[in-house]
Protein backbone atom coordinates (compact mmCIF):
# COMPACT_ATOMS: atom_id res chain seq x y z
CA UNK A 1 0.00 0.00 0.00
CA UNK A 2 1.20 3.49 -0.80
CA UNK A 3 -0.02 6.90 0.34
CA UNK A 4 -1.64 9.09 -2.30
CA UNK A 5 0.98 11.83 -2.03
CA UNK A 6 3.85 9.34 -2.39
CA UNK A 7 2.21 7.72 -5.39
CA UNK A 8 1.66 11.12 -6.99
CA UNK A 9 5.30 11.99 -6.39
CA UNK A 10 6.50 8.70 -7.92
CA UNK A 11 4.28 9.00 -11.00
CA UNK A 12 5.39 12.62 -11.40
CA UNK A 13 9.03 11.44 -11.38
CA UNK A 14 8.23 8.83 -14.04
CA UNK A 15 6.53 11.49 -16.11
CA UNK A 16 9.64 13.65 -15.85
CA UNK A 17 11.81 10.75 -17.03
CA UNK A 18 9.51 10.13 -19.99
CA UNK A 19 9.67 13.83 -20.80
CA UNK A 20 13.47 13.78 -20.71
CA UNK A 21 13.47 10.80 -23.03
CA UNK A 22 11.06 12.46 -25.42
CA UNK A 23 13.13 15.62 -25.68
CA UNK A 24 16.28 13.50 -26.20
CA UNK A 25 14.63 11.61 -29.07
CA UNK A 26 13.03 14.71 -30.50
CA UNK A 27 16.31 16.59 -30.56
CA UNK A 28 18.00 13.83 -32.53
CA UNK A 29 15.15 13.10 -34.91
CA UNK A 30 15.02 16.82 -35.75
CA UNK A 31 18.75 16.84 -36.45
CA UNK A 32 19.38 16.14 -40.16
CA UNK A 33 22.94 15.02 -39.39
CA UNK A 34 21.79 12.32 -36.99
CA UNK A 35 21.75 9.55 -39.59
CA UNK A 36 25.02 10.66 -41.18
CA UNK A 37 27.23 8.17 -39.34
CA UNK A 38 24.95 5.17 -39.82
CA UNK A 39 25.62 2.67 -42.61
CA UNK A 40 23.49 3.67 -45.59
CA UNK A 41 21.53 0.43 -45.73
CA UNK A 42 20.52 0.75 -42.06
CA UNK A 43 19.31 4.35 -42.19
CA UNK A 44 15.66 3.73 -43.20
CA UNK A 45 15.23 1.14 -40.45
CA UNK A 46 16.89 3.32 -37.81
CA UNK A 47 14.80 6.31 -38.86
CA UNK A 48 11.58 4.27 -38.78
CA UNK A 49 12.62 2.83 -35.43
CA UNK A 50 13.09 6.27 -33.96
CA UNK A 51 9.79 7.56 -35.31
CA UNK A 52 8.03 4.56 -33.72
CA UNK A 53 10.01 5.00 -30.50
CA UNK A 54 9.01 8.64 -30.33
CA UNK A 55 5.34 7.82 -30.91
CA UNK A 56 5.40 5.18 -28.17
CA UNK A 57 7.09 7.58 -25.80
CA UNK A 58 4.41 10.20 -26.46
CA UNK A 59 1.75 7.59 -25.81
CA UNK A 60 3.44 6.60 -22.53
CA UNK A 61 3.59 10.22 -21.49
CA UNK A 62 -0.16 10.51 -22.08
CA UNK A 63 -0.80 7.31 -20.11
CA UNK A 64 1.19 8.70 -17.19
CA UNK A 65 -0.67 12.01 -17.38
CA UNK A 66 -4.00 10.18 -17.35
CA UNK A 67 -2.86 8.09 -14.40
CA UNK A 68 -1.80 11.22 -12.54
CA UNK A 69 -5.19 12.81 -13.22
CA UNK A 70 -7.04 9.69 -12.07
CA UNK A 71 -5.07 9.54 -8.80
CA UNK A 72 -5.51 13.27 -8.18
CA UNK A 73 -9.26 13.09 -8.63
CA UNK A 74 -9.59 9.73 -6.85
CA UNK A 75 -11.17 9.68 -3.43
CA UNK A 76 -8.78 7.19 -1.85
CA UNK A 77 -5.87 8.23 0.41
CA UNK A 78 -3.99 4.99 -0.13
CA UNK A 79 -3.47 2.89 -3.23
Amino acid at each position, binding site marked *: *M*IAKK*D*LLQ*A*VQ*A*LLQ*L*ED*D*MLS*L*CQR*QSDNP*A*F*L*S*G*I*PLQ*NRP*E*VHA*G*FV*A*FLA*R*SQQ*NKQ*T*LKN*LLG*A*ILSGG*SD*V*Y
Partner: protein
Amino acid sequence: MFTKADYLNYGCLLQEKEQAMVVGLQQLLEQVTDEAVAGQLRALLREKQAAAEEVIRLFGKMFGMAPELRRYKRDPALGEVKLRNLQCGDTITCRCLDISLGGLCLQLSAELPQGLLLAMEVRFYESRRPVVRRARVRWCHRTEDGQYKAGLQFEASQATHAGETICEDE
Protein backbone atom coordinates in the same frame (compact mmCIF):
# COMPACT_ATOMS: atom_id res chain seq x y z
CA MET B 1 28.91 13.83 -39.03
CA PHE B 2 27.85 11.68 -36.12
CA THR B 3 30.50 9.27 -34.90
CA LYS B 4 30.26 5.90 -33.18
CA ALA B 5 31.16 7.70 -29.96
CA ASP B 6 28.14 9.99 -30.39
CA TYR B 7 25.84 7.05 -31.01
CA LEU B 8 27.25 5.15 -28.04
CA ASN B 9 26.80 8.13 -25.72
CA TYR B 10 23.32 8.74 -27.02
CA GLY B 11 22.33 5.08 -26.83
CA CYS B 12 23.66 4.78 -23.27
CA LEU B 13 21.74 7.84 -22.19
CA LEU B 14 18.49 6.52 -23.67
CA GLN B 15 19.11 3.07 -22.22
CA GLU B 16 19.82 4.54 -18.76
CA LYS B 17 16.56 6.45 -18.83
CA GLU B 18 14.59 3.42 -20.00
CA GLN B 19 16.17 1.31 -17.25
CA ALA B 20 15.41 4.00 -14.66
CA MET B 21 11.77 3.88 -15.77
CA VAL B 22 11.69 0.08 -15.51
CA VAL B 23 13.20 0.14 -12.01
CA GLY B 24 10.88 2.97 -10.92
CA LEU B 25 7.82 1.10 -12.15
CA GLN B 26 8.93 -2.18 -10.54
CA GLN B 27 9.46 -0.44 -7.18
CA LEU B 28 6.10 1.23 -7.41
CA LEU B 29 4.35 -2.03 -8.27
CA GLU B 30 5.74 -3.59 -5.09
CA GLN B 31 3.86 -0.99 -3.05
CA VAL B 32 0.64 -0.37 -4.95
CA THR B 33 -2.28 -2.58 -3.93
CA ASP B 34 -5.01 -0.78 -5.87
CA GLU B 35 -5.72 -3.13 -8.77
CA ALA B 36 -6.76 -0.44 -11.26
CA VAL B 37 -3.56 1.59 -10.72
CA ALA B 38 -1.41 -1.55 -10.60
CA GLY B 39 -2.88 -2.71 -13.93
CA GLN B 40 -1.90 0.56 -15.61
CA LEU B 41 1.59 0.42 -14.10
CA ARG B 42 2.04 -3.18 -15.26
CA ALA B 43 1.05 -2.21 -18.82
CA LEU B 44 3.54 0.65 -18.71
CA LEU B 45 6.23 -1.66 -17.37
CA ARG B 46 5.73 -4.08 -20.27
CA GLU B 47 5.94 -1.15 -22.65
CA LYS B 48 9.15 0.12 -21.05
CA GLN B 49 10.79 -3.30 -21.06
CA ALA B 50 10.03 -3.56 -24.79
CA ALA B 51 11.37 -0.03 -25.31
CA ALA B 52 14.63 -0.87 -23.53
CA GLU B 53 15.10 -3.84 -25.89
CA GLU B 54 14.23 -1.63 -28.85
CA VAL B 55 16.98 0.84 -27.86
CA ILE B 56 19.51 -2.01 -27.91
CA ARG B 57 18.26 -3.19 -31.30
CA LEU B 58 18.38 0.33 -32.76
CA PHE B 59 21.83 0.84 -31.31
CA GLY B 60 23.00 -2.29 -33.13
CA LYS B 61 21.65 -0.89 -36.38
CA MET B 62 23.29 2.49 -35.78
CA PHE B 63 26.58 0.82 -35.26
CA GLY B 64 26.17 -1.45 -38.23
CA MET B 65 27.23 -4.30 -36.00
CA ALA B 66 25.76 -7.73 -36.49
CA PRO B 67 24.76 -9.25 -33.14
CA GLU B 68 26.39 -12.45 -34.40
CA LEU B 69 29.79 -10.75 -34.48
CA ARG B 70 30.84 -12.33 -31.21
CA ARG B 71 30.41 -15.82 -32.65
CA TYR B 72 33.31 -15.37 -35.06
CA LYS B 73 36.29 -17.43 -34.03
CA ARG B 74 38.84 -14.83 -35.06
CA ASP B 75 37.71 -11.68 -33.34
CA PRO B 76 37.58 -8.49 -35.32
CA ALA B 77 38.40 -5.39 -33.27
CA LEU B 78 36.33 -2.23 -33.18
CA GLY B 79 38.99 0.01 -31.72
CA GLU B 80 41.69 0.62 -29.16
CA VAL B 81 41.02 0.99 -25.45
CA LYS B 82 43.15 2.64 -22.78
CA LEU B 83 42.44 1.46 -19.27
CA ARG B 84 43.49 3.13 -16.04
CA ASN B 85 43.34 1.30 -12.75
CA LEU B 86 41.57 3.75 -10.44
CA GLN B 87 43.35 2.35 -7.39
CA CYS B 88 47.00 2.47 -8.46
CA GLY B 89 46.86 4.61 -11.61
CA ASP B 90 48.50 1.98 -13.86
CA THR B 91 47.44 2.16 -17.50
CA ILE B 92 47.30 -0.45 -20.24
CA THR B 93 46.21 -0.42 -23.86
CA CYS B 94 44.11 -3.18 -25.38
CA ARG B 95 41.63 -3.94 -28.14
CA CYS B 96 37.86 -3.61 -28.04
CA LEU B 97 36.26 -6.70 -29.59
CA ASP B 98 32.63 -6.09 -28.94
CA ILE B 99 30.52 -3.38 -27.38
CA SER B 100 26.95 -2.99 -26.23
CA LEU B 101 25.07 -0.39 -24.23
CA GLY B 102 25.85 -2.34 -21.07
CA GLY B 103 29.56 -2.90 -21.50
CA LEU B 104 32.30 -4.22 -23.72
CA CYS B 105 34.55 -7.17 -24.39
CA LEU B 106 38.31 -6.62 -24.51
CA GLN B 107 41.32 -8.56 -25.68
CA LEU B 108 44.42 -7.84 -23.62
CA SER B 109 47.79 -9.21 -22.65
CA ALA B 110 47.32 -9.13 -18.87
CA GLU B 111 44.73 -10.57 -16.54
CA LEU B 112 42.28 -8.18 -14.88
CA PRO B 113 40.94 -9.05 -11.44
CA GLN B 114 37.19 -9.48 -11.26
CA GLY B 115 35.45 -6.48 -9.69
CA LEU B 116 38.22 -4.01 -10.51
CA LEU B 117 36.97 -0.51 -11.33
CA LEU B 118 38.66 1.13 -14.30
CA ALA B 119 38.53 4.39 -16.16
CA MET B 120 38.62 3.76 -19.87
CA GLU B 121 38.89 5.57 -23.12
CA VAL B 122 37.64 3.82 -26.25
CA ARG B 123 38.91 5.03 -29.61
CA PHE B 124 36.96 3.44 -32.42
CA TYR B 125 38.92 2.99 -35.59
CA GLU B 126 36.27 4.90 -37.49
CA SER B 127 35.89 7.80 -35.07
CA ARG B 128 38.21 10.49 -33.87
CA ARG B 129 36.39 11.44 -30.70
CA PRO B 130 36.96 8.95 -27.87
CA VAL B 131 34.32 7.57 -25.56
CA VAL B 132 35.25 7.95 -21.90
CA ARG B 133 33.58 5.67 -19.40
CA ARG B 134 34.09 3.94 -16.09
CA ALA B 135 33.62 0.21 -16.10
CA ARG B 136 33.97 -2.74 -13.77
CA VAL B 137 35.57 -6.06 -14.67
CA ARG B 138 32.91 -8.78 -14.62
CA TRP B 139 34.99 -11.67 -15.96
CA CYS B 140 38.42 -12.31 -17.39
CA HIS B 141 39.85 -15.54 -18.77
CA ARG B 142 42.89 -16.73 -20.66
CA THR B 143 42.43 -17.69 -24.30
CA GLU B 144 44.21 -20.38 -26.34
CA ASP B 145 46.64 -17.86 -27.85
CA GLY B 146 47.92 -16.84 -24.40
CA GLN B 147 46.03 -13.55 -24.41
CA TYR B 148 43.16 -12.63 -22.09
CA LYS B 149 39.59 -11.76 -22.80
CA ALA B 150 37.63 -9.64 -20.34
CA GLY B 151 34.05 -8.49 -20.04
CA LEU B 152 33.57 -5.05 -18.52
CA GLN B 153 30.29 -3.54 -17.42
CA PHE B 154 29.77 0.22 -17.66
CA GLU B 155 29.18 1.94 -14.34
CA ALA B 156 25.96 3.95 -13.96
CA SER B 157 25.84 7.74 -14.23
CA GLN B 158 28.48 7.80 -16.93
CA ALA B 159 27.81 11.41 -17.76
CA THR B 160 29.52 12.52 -14.55
CA HIS B 161 32.80 11.11 -15.84
CA ALA B 162 32.70 12.76 -19.24
CA GLY B 163 35.94 14.55 -19.95
CA GLU B 164 37.95 12.36 -17.59
CA THR B 165 41.41 11.71 -18.99
CA ILE B 166 43.00 8.30 -18.93
CA CYS B 167 46.64 9.24 -19.34
CA GLU B 168 47.99 12.36 -17.73
CA ASP B 169 50.26 13.13 -20.65
CA GLU B 170 47.29 13.39 -23.03
